[in-house]
């Protein structure tokens, strides 16, 4: 692959980094990242990955842009209200960087489609930008079963947390949280609220993890949970225990089929 002059200029701040260089930039341009949910977390992740020159970005979201999304979902804009989020996301990404091939999936993830979506472009890395526990467990299980690395994250109010799963390199999301909490035991973010920047902070951590994984540099959040408290302005990384008997990633896994847990929709 050969860079055009325009690409040399566009990615110059990446290329000048020893850890990236021309080789790393080519790697990014040849990489494929799937972002599930183009909301509070997925929006900033998508924009930064697009800006960095990740060559293929998949966007999954069945929803349309709503005015109440714009407080935090910065990939969308006022003129896009009512439009499918994946279409709005594609336009924003290609305005920012026409190099990026955006693949859109205007659907909710379920056990019926997630495997096909991940396999569609044989994505290298998956970002969980969803807003509900059934989807989070589904993404975890699908990635573990397909041996795909992914970044998990959640935000609420003034708090956020994120961890990275890489096959064979530490616990999965289910190791830590076992099962989704029953529906209606937890108020939705619509009820609880979330500070708009929480998605920006945690979503860009997810994008950073994706770029690091793709380039093979640094220490990922594998086996660690990064917990952020915006009120205290404190980041902590908690070393996670291992769970050898995890039903999906443990020594004798029993979970072979994906599960559709009862869903309670919530907008991040």
């Amino acid at each position, binding site marked *: 692959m050969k860079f055009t002059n325009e690409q040399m200029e566009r990615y110059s701040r990446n290329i000048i980094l020893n850890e990236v260089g021309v080789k790393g930039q080519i790697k990014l341009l040849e990489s494929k990242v799937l972002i599930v949910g183009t909301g509070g977390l997925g929006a900033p992740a998508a924009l930064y990955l697009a800006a960095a020159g990740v060559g293929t970005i998949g966007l999954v979201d069945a929803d349309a842009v709503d005015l109440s999304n714009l407080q935090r979902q910065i990939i969308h804009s006022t003129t896009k209200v009512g439009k499918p989020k994946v279409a709005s996301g594609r336009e924003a990404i290609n305005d920012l960087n026409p190099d990026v091939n955006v693949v859109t999936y205007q659907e909710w993830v379920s056990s019926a489609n997630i495997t096909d979506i991940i396999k569609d472009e044989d994505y290298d890395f998956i970002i969980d930008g*969803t*807003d*509900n*526990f059934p*989807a*989070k467990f589904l993404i975890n299980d699908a990635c573990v079963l397909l041996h795909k690395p992914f970044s998990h*994250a*959640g*935000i*609420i*109010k003034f*708090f*956020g*947390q994120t961890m990275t799963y890489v096959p064979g390199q530490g616990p999965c999301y289910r190791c*830590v*949280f*076992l099962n989704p*909490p029953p529906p209606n*035991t*937890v*108020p*939705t*973010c619509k*009820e*609880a609220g979330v500070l708009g920047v929480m998605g920006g902070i945690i979503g860009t951590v997810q994008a950073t993890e994706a770029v690091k994984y793709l380039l093979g540099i640094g220490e990922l959040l594998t086996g660690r*949970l990064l917990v952020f408290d915006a009120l205290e302005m404190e980041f*902590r990384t*908690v*070393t*996670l*225990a291992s*769970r050898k008997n995890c039903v999906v990633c443990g020594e004798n896994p029993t979970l072979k089929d994906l599960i559709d847990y009862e869903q*309670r929709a*919530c907008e*991040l």
Partner: protein
Amino acid sequence: MIVKVNGNEVVLEKAISLKELLVVQQVRTPEYVTVQLNNEFISAGSFEDTLIKDGDEIEFLYFMGGGQAL
């Protein structure tokens, strides 16, 4: 005795169980909290039988995303 809960030092007058610590720390829905004691997961069924010792490091990990941090 002194223990660490989510990185913060907590002074306890006497030895208490993990279940009691959840109450002392005002964890609202202990049934949905993941507990690590000295970097090992403790199942919810063992909260009552697990005694906290001096110097223990406890992490309460909360569900987050799509709902409130429990």
